[in-house]
């Protein structure tokens, strides 16, 4: 029998397993108390479900195999949010508002170079049917309370908006994925190289360089909100409104920072995007945002927003309940 370990896949034993369950329970209590219902989607789903409106980055992380029983293709989920979109568009299609939480393993097709792993224990919260800022603020509040429940100190929520990125690269001959990939490294020189062979006008180029330089905060946004396009203005207005409301609601719990260069983990977000950080944790603790466009791809037009995180990463970063 071949008992050789599988690259990037491992067992959780003893104290590590019990710590995960304890953290999972504490967070589930938090979400249940906030009026969210638990759902448990299966580990496998159809590839088209997992990749509908989700972009190339997620497809690149999806393990697909043929199912002898069904004679079709199945995929191991790399992310649970698309399954929530499927549930909302099918089995729970008659509910106007859905507030759901989940927690379970996901598998990525490729090793994470930093952790050497391709498994995560994804937990998350999705708020569907609540439009605009109200839904987003509810999600931000739960995200910050999640970090505090897990014992993280001085949480910081970085807020951006995918509409800003889309508006800035509108008219570029490069795909949005290419810009997002370059912006994720925040290297102005790399952006300059991309701009050198692009037809984007100088003003948009300068603003993209600001994003890479990390100076695209709330004051920058106020200064440029009306100078790019109607789409840019609309996204800026949404972000101003969200920032203002979130500051009122989350006052004292968490530091809120607007940064137009905040990017989603996968490319299915179309509105607000958020990354959560805390002192002592080396990488973002959570990712989230608004994904109305993905719901459209699933055949149901409804507002949708949420966040998710990896419980194993949280334990490694010192989460304690």
């Amino acid at each position, binding site marked *: 029998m071949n008992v050789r370990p599988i690259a990037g896949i491992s067992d959780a034993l003893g104290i590590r397993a019990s710590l995960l369950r304890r953290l999972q329970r504490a967070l589930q209590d938090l979400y249940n108390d906030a009026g969210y219902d638990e759902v448990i989607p299966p580990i496998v789903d159809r590839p088209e479900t997992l990749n509908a409106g989700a972009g190339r980055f997620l497809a690149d992380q999806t393990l697909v195999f043929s199912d002898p029983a069904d004679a079709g293709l199945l995929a191991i989920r790399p992310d649970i949010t698309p399954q929530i979109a499927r549930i909302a568009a099918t089995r729970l299609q008659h509910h106007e508002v859905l507030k759901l939480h989940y927690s379970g393993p996901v598998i990525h097709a490729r090793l994470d170079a*930093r952790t050497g792993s391709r498994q995560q224990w994804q937990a998350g919260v999705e708020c569907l049917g609540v439009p605009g800022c109200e839904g987003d603020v509810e999600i931000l509040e739960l995200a910050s309370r999640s970090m505090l429940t897990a014992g993280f100190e001085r949480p910081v929520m970085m807020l951006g908006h995918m509409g800003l990125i889309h508006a800035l690269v509108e008219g570029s001959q490069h795909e949005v994925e290419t810009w997002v990939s370059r912006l994720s490294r*925040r*290297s102005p020189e790399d952006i300059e190289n991309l701009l050198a062979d692009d037809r984007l006008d100088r003003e948009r180029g300068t603003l993209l360089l600001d994003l890479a330089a*990390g100076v695209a905060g709330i004051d920058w946004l106020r200064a440029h909100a009306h100078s790019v396009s109607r789409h840019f203005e609309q996204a800026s207005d949404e972000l101003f409104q969200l920032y203002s409301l979130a500051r009122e609601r989350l006052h004292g719990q968490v530091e809120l920072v607007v940064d137009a260069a905040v990017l989603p983990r996968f490319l299915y977000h179309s509105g607000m995007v958020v990354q959560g*950080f805390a002192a002592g944790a080396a990488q973002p603790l959570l990712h989230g945002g608004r994904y109305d466009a993905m719901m459209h791809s699933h055949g149901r037009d409804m507002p949708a927003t949420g966040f998710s995180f990896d419980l194993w990463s949280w334990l490694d970063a010192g989460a304690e309940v």
Partner: protein
Amino acid sequence: MADCLLTIALSKGRILKQTLPLLEAAGIAPADDVSSTRKLMLDGPTVDMAGISVAIRYLIIRAADVCTYVEKGAADAGVAGRDSLLEYRPQVYEPLDLKIGRCRLCVAGPARLVAAGPPAPGSRITVATKYDRLTAEYYLNQGIHADIIHLYGSMELAPLVGMAERIVDLVETGSTLKANGLVEEATLYDISSRLIVNPASFATKRTVLQTLIGKLRDSVNA
């Protein structure tokens, strides 16, 4: 007592010599003589950055390890070569090109092989390098199967003893290539050293790191 501790990882060797004048110009040079000490962790000055008292600490480590220390959050920022960033793709920000340590990542080979022209698509060659990923990508994009031999140094020797037909390595002046009868065939990337920053540090120590980036940008442009 400082309000904030800022840890900066510096690459040992040639890059360190070029980094120190930038740190001095920014007023944040290490207190010890870095070239003579054997300490791996050094104190820097305590300075005011946007009204925050910041104690600076330096880690002196191998160039290839700077990315790891910054990605893992053991250092808030660091100085790393673009070659390491491209090869290892750490999850860090790269906000500033320090314009030091300039060189090129090149393909080179024995003069007679290079004179015969680049390998044809569909062919197979053996390449010695420490940049396995970048080399594999480069040849894959040209439809050439590259058998990669990973070496840790002195790449130029591999073609001389018949172990490889090409090398992929950093070239500064080209004198080592010339001394060993090798010539450049192609440039993959222009390389320089960059200031890199841990993403979580950028979020939680934003004001301090923005000030640091500004000071170093002024030093680079001076």
